[in-house]
């Protein structure tokens, strides 16, 4: 796998000579009149600072990046003068419609401005411990959420080195996502252990399903699964837990988490919309992909490691009336997830998914019962 330089530079007389020339004052200045666009960028709104949008100008801007990148395979900065022998970095994602979303630069700026630190921003020490049963349910739920976070962290990590550097803003957003999920992993782990119950059980069904989503064949497919389906699902989980929060720490933590997840879902939706609007023929492939992989939603919903603790948390305990209340709240949660999932797909351009998908029929059986 290793890459070796084309020669031993410490022994190359031509190179040593060239270095010496410069250090003796004979500058080449070949860079001085670079053939690049002159620009003096400035903020359009000083309250917002200098954003990537302010620099979306000419050859430097992201708007002008074409659909197909055939000539740029190095890390040379977009808009700089490329010369000499630039290496091929091995990018495998070179089509804008695979990765782009019209909102990605704004989402990147928003992500940076809305950062938080779990160690100090969550009130870990406020004394409002729930019952042992509810705390055990929290430990289980947060064990499950750590699994989701590990997978969500892996997705941008797998793809970012394979994506052409011309898509700088998108790659930057993916880096922000990586930190978002590292932070959420951290927060979920801390919360799981906070109550003294220890972690609980990993979920076979969830992990099998999540691996299928994570290991999608293409970035687009993976993005639909992780950035749209999973992020939308987790957004609803975070909202649910915040609404029934056993501790203030849960409410605050989930308040931050929902912001992060909503941003990711917004990108996922925007990415799918961009793909379908620029390559409408992809609609067939996307539908087929969803036909094959949508079952993972069921794997998540039906995972006892999510389902049961959610019922206990929403109901507030294990008494019959509490379980009944918890079931009702969980049923509403499931319907909410499916409704919003279908809305996002429809908004992206997949009209008719609701009738094609097998999920609604299964979820309707919950309502019927």
């Amino acid at each position, binding site marked *: 796998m290793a890459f070796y330089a084309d020669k031993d530079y410490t022994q190359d007389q031509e190179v040593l000579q060239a270095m010496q020339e410069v250090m003796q004052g004979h500058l080449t200045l070949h860079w001085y009149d670079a053939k690049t666009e002159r620009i003096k960028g400035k903020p359009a709104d000083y309250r917002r600072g200098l954003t990537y949008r302010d620099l979306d100008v000419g050859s430097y801007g992201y708007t002008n990046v074409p659909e197909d990148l055939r000539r740029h395979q190095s890390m040379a900065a977009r808009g700089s003068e490329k010369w000499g022998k630039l290496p091929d970095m091995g990018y495998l994602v070179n089509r804008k419609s695979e990765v782009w979303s019209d909102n990605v630069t704004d989402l990147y700026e928003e992500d940076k401005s809305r950062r938080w630190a779990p160690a100090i921003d969550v009130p870990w020490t406020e004394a409002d411990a729930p019952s042992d049963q509810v705390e055990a349910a929290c430990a289980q739920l947060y064990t499950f959420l750590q699994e989701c976070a590990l997978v969500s962290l892996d997705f941008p990590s797998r793809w970012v080195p394979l994506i052409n550097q011309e898509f700088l803003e998108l790659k930057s957003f993916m880096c922000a996502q990586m930190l978002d999920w590292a932070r959420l992993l951290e927060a979920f782990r801390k919360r799981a252990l906070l109550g003294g119950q220890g972690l*609980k059980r990993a979920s076979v069904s969830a992990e099998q399903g999540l691996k299928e989503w994570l290991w999608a064949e293409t970035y687009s497919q993976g993005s639909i699964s992780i950035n749209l389906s999973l992020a939308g699902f987790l957004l609803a989980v975070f909202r649910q837990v915040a609404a029934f929060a056993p501790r203030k720490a849960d409410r605050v933590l989930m308040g931050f988490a929902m912001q992060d997840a909503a941003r990711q879902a917004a990108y996922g939706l925007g990415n799918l919309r961009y793909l379908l609007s620029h390559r409408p023929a992809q609609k067939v492939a996307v539908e087929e992909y969803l036909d094959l992989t949508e*079952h993972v939603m069921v794997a998540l919903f039906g995972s006892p490691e999510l389902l049961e603790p959610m019922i206990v948390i929403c109901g507030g305990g294990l008494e019959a009336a509490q379980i009944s209340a918890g079931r009702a709240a969980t049923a509403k949660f499931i319907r909410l997830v499916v409704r919003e999932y279908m809305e996002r797909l429809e908004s992206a351009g997949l009209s008719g998914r609701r009738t094609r998908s097998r999920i609604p029929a299964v979820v309707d059986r919950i309502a019927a019962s």
Partner: protein
Amino acid sequence: MSYLSTSNFLDDKDFVDKWLYTMRTGELDLSWINAATEKAKPQLQNPRRGLTYRDLDLGSYGFTGVPEKVRDNRSYAPRGAEMPPGLPDAQPEVSRKSELWAFNTEGYYEEAVTRQWNATTDIPWERLEGAELPEAIGKALSQLMTFLTEVEMIATDTPAKWLPRLNPEFIEVRAFIASQAMDEARHAEVFRKRALTTGWGLMKASPMNEMALKHLRDADSFSEMSLALHLVAEGNVLTMFRFSEYLSPTDVDKKIFRLVMQDEARHVGYGMQHFKWVLENFPEKRDILHKHLDEAENISFAAGAATELTESFIVLAGGGLKPENIEKGIRITTQFQLKQMEEHFERLDKCGMPERKERSKLYMMYEMGKAAAEQAGLKI
């Protein structure tokens, strides 16, 4: 090249029936309540620091207890969780602690999370309004910024390439890599923004340095990657940031370099601690790492031939293009280059590889360069 789970859960009648039964009746299995896991309650060692990963370093949950070879977990189960049969294989390629661990990894990560700054709003861009640099300085600064924005994201792409291949047991290392990815995206951003506010735009790409990037990206192991990236490359860049702060033509540039050097020092810190850990815990790797350094140092030396960088540094350091400026610029650039090399060998020495000097061609070049500089009356 995709994975399909062991079951299509929509077709798994038992699974769906059990789910619907639970929803219908409220009969819960609850076997997870008595999961075969350790009970542990973390205490906040320092309430002002909040609840840290170090506070969670307890028993089976802690990083201290992770063995040298992780044999029992290859899934996405978080460390310490009960692992029922049937969990998928996450296909980790690095399950050996000494391949990736560093003392204080968790500390570096917590520090990174609390010290995130924003290239959009934390730099006083408005102070550049109306500020015009002389042409030579402006162009030299733009060229330096072009180089820096070009190279920064290799330190996103390269560790990110490794992250999903690391066993998920190593939560803190994965977290640190994620924080580094964000740091480097921010660096690429701030340098690009600065270049595009000079009035000159971006300048020329750097083929010699791109070769270095390719080398960093394509290492055979995580340790070799970390050595070349965190210790060699980022060590060099850290020295460059310090000199650049010193040479900055405006207070805005000084602020930029002060902020980036904080992040860079953290990455170098991890690199040094990891290198130490490898040498102490995986001594068989010493010669492999020497061989990797042979190549990394070769390429590092080659960067000296990237005249677009060296010359722009000379112009910035000297303050212009007149002969007296160039002379001054060369003196400062010589000091900088020698300092880079000196600090590189100091790091290797401190980490437990003092013998590197005897083997290294770069060290030979350093000694020659130092002798020549001292002869010319330069203070190193």
